[in-house]
């Protein structure tokens, strides 16, 4: 009886979503305040019922209710309770319910956080979120009901995919979805502005913290996914340009561009229609990502069992939501013209270039991801686009982006002389150049051109970001302290610099070897000695494993013992490799057991990965910068702050 309660709750939420999607927007158009006032109660009610449905499903998982089809497919009584809960989003139906739950949560937060905004505006925003929610709830109930029953209950479930039985995989989907779905908020703000036909600089100030928050979750979510792929399935790779990875990366690129164009719109009232367009594009890419992952059109480890009906429904939803928004944009955007121009050497110019380059990068990824689909659909053959395309093409916009980033931070709004800018940048530029040329040689003894370029670029961003704050700190310049948003920007850019260093050094100096070894073998790797001590059987809660024991020694002293495993999960009887990793901030040593080759010989993958932690740690630093920027007190003040109208006094304002 309880699972039916969940389905009933989803039905009620659907009705409330319909109310929220129609009356507030109609009320804003006709000036009926009673209709507009319905938006908030509808949003709260919707949250309550969606959350109830989510809890009902979680309850079914925790109590092993295998009469529910979805539970039977994705859980098992021997699964640890922690993973039973995570199994709620281990399959298609549940992850869709998670999508809807997170959307309801964002809507609830927006309905509380938008109380200080004009009534008509917040009614429209909540109305647009209601439309999205209605579509997704309808999709869930019609094609992907997680509460469907089995006619004849089974004794035990099919178990959660062993790949997902991992702590990072437990939190990766909710955090990634919080980012994906969070982009619906700037989307709703953009559509609300289009509906009203007006776009003030206040609009950009309201939209910025929401965009940065969604971006922050997206950043952490992608980093978690990459980290998981590295130790769980990648045999040491951290990014594969897999269609599903790209599906999460494209909204990230678009929202990064959006954050920067919002800065210009808020500060200078420029790029208005472009900002609106970006907000629509960013969320459309989120929906596109959902389509790519959920419809099964893509060949990927992430794709669950495919169902054409689902694909068609999401495509329809994408067409209606994004198509509607783009149409509205085409009709209304001409009213949103800029209030003035800008000079060549100015913050505005740099942010324009930032947007251009990010869009080029986005198009590169989009083209590489979607063209196999189109070529297949046209019957021209089955192709896939290899990582070399992405790796080489992605560099083309990224290199200038990274170099301009350091300069852009120091350029002032409204323009400055090129000389002043050059003088400001001289010390960090020279420092980065000297260190970048020297360090690779000193530490690793050799360096290719791309390596030096990458190291210089990474150091350049970090130096340019930190130069000013550190100088102020040393001089104890308390007169003009950095605002929280400025610290946020600084840290986010430092994170990019760390990421660039991590990618460059780990891809240039990694040592990756496959070898055949027997217990007792010892060999040398990057100055370490590795001793293969032996193998033993290990019994886990719901798996059996063969565990290898490897000593890692440096100069004769023991550093650590690594124990990679080959697991076989009992229910699905599928094998899984658990790598043994010794992780330090400056390098990883990675050992994975392959297969027995006969005569006691095992195949092994042994890797040395310098600075690879900087990739994920850099992403965390970026996200922390986002957190600081999103929580700047400036966004909470009700009064619109004085805007830039003349130069000089505002030169220290953040981007």
């Amino acid at each position, binding site marked *: 009886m309880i699972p039916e309660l969940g389905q009933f709750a989803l039905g009620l939420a659907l009705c409330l979503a319909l109310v929220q999607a129609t009356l507030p927007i109609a009320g804003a158009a006709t000036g009926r305040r009673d209709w507009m006032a319905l938006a908030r109660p509808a949003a709260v009610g919707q949250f309550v019922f969606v959350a109830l449905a989510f809890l009902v499903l979680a309850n079914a998982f925790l109590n092993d209710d295998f009469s529910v089809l979805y539970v039977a497919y994705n859980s098992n009584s021997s699964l640890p309770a922690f993973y039973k809960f995570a199994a709620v989003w281990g399959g298609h139906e549940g992850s869709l319910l998670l999508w809807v739950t997170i959307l309801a949560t964002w809507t609830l937060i927006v309905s509380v956080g938008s109380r200080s905004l004009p009534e008509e505006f917040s009614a429209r925003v909540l109305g647009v979120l209601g439309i999205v929610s209605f579509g997704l709830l309808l999709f869930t109930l019609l094609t992907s009901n997680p509460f469907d029953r089995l006619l004849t209950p089974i004794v035990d479930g099919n178990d959660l*995919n062993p*790949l997902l039985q991992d702590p990072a995989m437990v939190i990766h989907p909710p955090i990634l979805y919080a980012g994906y779905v969070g982009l619906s908020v700037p989307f709703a703000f953009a559509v609300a502005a289009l509906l009203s036909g007006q776009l003030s600089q206040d609009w950009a100030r309201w939209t910025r913290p929401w965009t940065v928050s969604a971006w922050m979750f997206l950043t952490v979510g992608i980093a978690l996914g990459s980290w998981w792929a590295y130790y769980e*399935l990648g*045999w040491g790779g951290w990014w594969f340009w897999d269609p599903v990875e790209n599906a999460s990366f494209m909204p990230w690129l678009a929202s990064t561009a959006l954050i920067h164009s919002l800065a210009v719109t808020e500060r200078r009232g420029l790029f208005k229609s472009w900002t609106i367009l970006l907000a629509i594009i960013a969320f459309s890419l989120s929906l596109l990502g959902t389509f790519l992952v959920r419809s*099964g059109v893509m*060949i990927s*480890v992430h794709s669950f069992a*495919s169902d054409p009906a689902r694909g068609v429904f999401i495509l329809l939803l994408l067409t209606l939501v994004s198509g509607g928004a783009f149409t509205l944009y085409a009709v209304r955007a001409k009213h949103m013209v800029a209030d003035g*121009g800008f*000079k*060549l050497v100015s913050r505005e*110019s740099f942010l*324009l*270039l930032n947007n*251009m380059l990010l869009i*080029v990068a986005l*198009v*590169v990824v989009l*083209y*590489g991801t979607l*063209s196999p689909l189109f070529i297949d659909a046209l019957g021209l*053959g*089955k*192709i*896939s*686009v*290899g990582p*070399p*395309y992405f790796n*080489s*093409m992605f560099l*083309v*916009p990224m290199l*200038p982006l990274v170099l301009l980033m350091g300069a852009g931070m120091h350029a002032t709004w409204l323009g400055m002389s090129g000389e002043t800018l050059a003088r400001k940048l001289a010390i960090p530029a020279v420092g980065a150049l000297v260190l970048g040329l020297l360090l690779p040689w000193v530490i690793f003894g050799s360096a290719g051109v791309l390596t030096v370029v990458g190291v210089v670029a990474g150091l350049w961003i970090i130096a340019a970001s930190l130069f000013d704050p550190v100088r102020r700190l040393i001089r104890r310049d308390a007169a003009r302290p950095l605002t929280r948003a400025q610290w946020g920007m600084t840290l986010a850019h430092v994170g990019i610099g760390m990421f660039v260093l991590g990618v460059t050094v780990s891809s240039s100096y990694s040592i990756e070897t*496959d*070898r*055949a070894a027997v217990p007792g073998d010892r060999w040398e790797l990057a100055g370490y000695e590795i001793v293969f001590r032996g193998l033993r059987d290990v019994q886990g809660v719901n798996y059996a494993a063969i565990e290898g024991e490897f000593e890692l020694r440096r100069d004769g002293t023991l550093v650590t013992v690594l124990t990679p495993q080959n697991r076989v999960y009992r229910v*699905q*009887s*599928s*094998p*899984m*490799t658990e790598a043994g990793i010794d992780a330090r901030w400056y390098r990883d040593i990675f050992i*994975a057991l*392959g*297969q027995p*080759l*006969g*005569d006691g*010989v095992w*195949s*092994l*993958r042994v890797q040395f990965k310098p600075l690879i932690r900087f990739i994920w740690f850099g992403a965390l630093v970026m996200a922390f910068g986002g957190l600081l920027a999103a929580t700047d007190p400036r966004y909470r003040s009700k009064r619109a702050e004085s805007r830039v109208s003349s130069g000089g006094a505002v030169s220290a304002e953040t981007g």
Partner: protein
Amino acid sequence: MTPRRQRMLLIGLVVAGVALSAALALRAFQENLLFFFSPTQVVAGEAPDARLFRLGGMVVEDSVSRDPGSLTMSFVVTDYAHSVPVSYTGVLPDLFGEGQGVVAHGRLTPDGNFIAEEVLAKHDENYMPPEVADAIAQAQAQAQENTAE
């Protein structure tokens, strides 16, 4: 420079940059396309000789053989109509096995052997790569046509 000229310069630079990267992108794209071929297509000589491509099908039962103690191994991939021998040196993915679907990246040697640089098997025991399923269905349809004639 007047502001107008400055803006034209900026726009010009941007357009040139976009055009350049588009040209580069298309070239890189052409060079890195990986076509997929089934064993039937390979046997019929449709696959390229020197270029990298993807071969997919099922691993034939009892076809996996190894040089004892080394990382080199060989197996046969089939779509149940035709088969291609594959050799590979390295660590195999977890779910590689006889009777399972597999996709390999590699090149064809003149004597019809496929040298794999990378072997992919998907992470679900019931999962069959859609391309492989497609290739097998096509091969079976062809076989039926042939017997009907």
